[in-house]
């Protein structure tokens, strides 16, 4: 069994209220030197069987049609070592 990770982030041009809220709170917490924060989702999928190209293609398809809404979000798929 292997783990594939899908990261879903809002597209750069789309407002990210969550990331902004975190960023605005940083100075109050005494953290400076962080110029931007964006918050997204991380999905950890446990895959039965080999993680070959076909399997990754299927995960990519899943990300595109279901995990992310590509109107507003980008995603990346990677195998976790």
């Amino acid at each position, binding site marked *: 069994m292997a783990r594939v990770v899908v990261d879903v982030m*809002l597209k750069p041009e789309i407002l990210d209220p969550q990331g902004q809220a975190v960023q605005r709170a940083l100075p109050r917490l005494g953290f400076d030197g962080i110029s931007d924060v964006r918050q997204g989702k991380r999905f950890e999928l446990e895959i039965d069987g080999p993680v070959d190209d076909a399997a990754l293609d299927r995960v990519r398809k899943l990300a595109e049609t279901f995990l992310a809404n590509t*109107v507003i979000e980008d995603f990346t798929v990677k195998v976790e070592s």
Partner: protein
Amino acid sequence: MLPSSGGQPPNPRTLDTVKHANETPGTEQPWAELGLKQDEYERIREILGRRPTGAELAMYSVMWSEHCSYKSSKVHLRQFGEKAPDNDALLVGIGENAGVVDVGQGYAVTFKVESHNHPSYIEPYQGAATGVGGIVRDILAMGARPVAVMDPLRFGAADHPDTKRVLPGVVAGIGGYGNCLGLPNIGGEVVFDPCYQGNPLVNALCVGVMKHEDIHLAKASGAGNKVILYGARTGGDGIGGVSVLASETFDSTGPSRRPAVQVGDPFQEKLLIECTLEIFREDLVTGIQDLGGAGLSCATSELASAGSGGMRVELDTVPLRDSSLSPEEILMSESQERMCAIVEPGKVDRFLEICEKWDVIATVIGEVTDGDRLEIFWHGDQIVDVPPRTVAHEGPVYQRPYERPSWQDELQADDAGRLPRPGTPEELREQVLKVVASPNQASKSWVTDQYDRFVQGNTVLAQPEDSGMVRVDEETGLGVAVATDGNGRYAKLDPYAGAQLALAESYRNVAAAGATPLAISNCLNFGSPEDPAVMWQFAEATRGLADGCLALGTPVTGGNVSLYNQTGETAIHPTPVVAVLGVIDDVARRTPIGFASEGHLLYLLGDTREELGGSAWSQVIHDHLGGLPPRVDLEREKLLAEILVSASRDGMVDAAHDLSDGGLVQALVESSLRGGKGARVVVPDGLDPFVFLFSESAGRAVVAVPRSEEVRFTDMCGARGLPAARIGVVDGASLEIQGQFSLPLSELRRAHEETIPALLA
């Protein structure tokens, strides 16, 4: 003040200044891609006496889009003004962000319903969420504190797989945004019909309350006054989104054609509300406008157009989220959660201070001038120089051809009265169960439980009551009630009558709760205006609504038109949604729908005829749509409403429920389940039990009358000429139709409440 980041310094070679436009009259311009027609482009050139700059072209194109200019609907909407009933209650009429109604005791109420149909199909959550955000800012811009929202919704077939994607997203979006703003959701609709498959209707309504003296208008006056943009930074999302998206037939095929949808930030909007209310309280603004469709193009041109002078804007001072935006993009961006205010110079500091208190970014972006032009500059270079009225209020007006469709006669001839009816009491019982369990008639609590209906602590009635009601004054108990209704099936059979039936039902719902109907708002959802058949439906519906409002004495205070709701050649059912606002002197007197007291007598008010065209029964049992919708009698509706309001005021009724889709049996089931008490009902002599239970004759309600009030109540109905038939008594734990069947409430509850969760689980 918070830092404002201007855009990029000008690139002299690409910046299309007014000067440059004058020097290069022959430059090719992308007017067609921006949705303008050839003659519209020519007219812009004529107005300006030259070719428009890129920024001007951007402004005209969004402001002259169907969504912003109402170019196809304007000629019909005029009737709402021309046929307006005399009504002292109307303080601000059509044309402002929302109409305002006097509700007494120095209070004024503003309300409006708007559509966010197209974005909600593409991105259900954000599309619906930003729909709520937009209507709330409209209400806020009038000077009011928003106090409640409602959401009339329509989706494709309940069991269609795409409904499973769209509905939960839309509902979560409306809840996610409205709940986070602290606005109770007090009502709405959930309707399923295959005609909405590729075109769900997401309409959103907001109600706001203010004192008369707090009314604010969207106009810029007083040369030297400052133009302040405040709220969220401007980003590249939703450029031309709503306006362009909602202005042509939507083609859902290619992902490449999907235009950007905005992401809403309800937290920012909540801050904007509190900040703006504090600014109103200190009387710091002379004019104010929210930013919605067409963004800054709309706000600046409308403010300037409605005001007395001109306006000068330094566009590079606009705080941006993305510093690479071009001036055209800044003008067209529909970034959410922004407002624009006109402020006297001496009040600017205090204004900015309040914004700072609420962590709201505010920037002086320009000032009112004594000229008559809207002038916009980019790092010192002039990129816009236009007469603002030509952008905002003098857009194109179309007399679109319309024609009664050829199939209308055939549709109306296909009478639902000819459909096979239940032959035995057993079959009748089965059909009752089937109808109350059908998606359209089933309980919507799966949806409405996702909305906060208690926040603000003034909610008197909310779903599943006939109308939503909120208290306005804690001391006197003054309150307002709102209901929204629409029936696309009726409107398809006869758009004129359909619009009046929507009005009548909403009016009746408000009265059933004990409130006196005062005024209306509406959202007209139709297909493409370029189709003469659709245009005929639109013309008929507006005519019906205007005539109906005149007859009922309830003026139209505002509303919204959503066209191009169609997939390919197929338009949705014509769907006028009508919201009626009513007032009640003391909310303690409100009438709920639930049968809660054993022994109270049930009276059916109004006349029951055999009217099955467009009915829930014909849809559920026979999947049929044909014939004529129920007959409209607005004088009767008025009388019924007066009786319902008097009965509530004088404590003569304990419960009241209007009759609409599903007929009497639907109302009996809902009232029994709501109050937890059954009913024993007798079919009046001479009435067919099936017709008695399922006919959808308008102008009816069922009421529960305490025995002690029976004489007083029937005397009142008799004296005023309203038919009132005693049909039974509140009793037991079943719904029993004597001589026909008996249905335990537990069985009815299962049937009524399990449908929607099962479909959406």
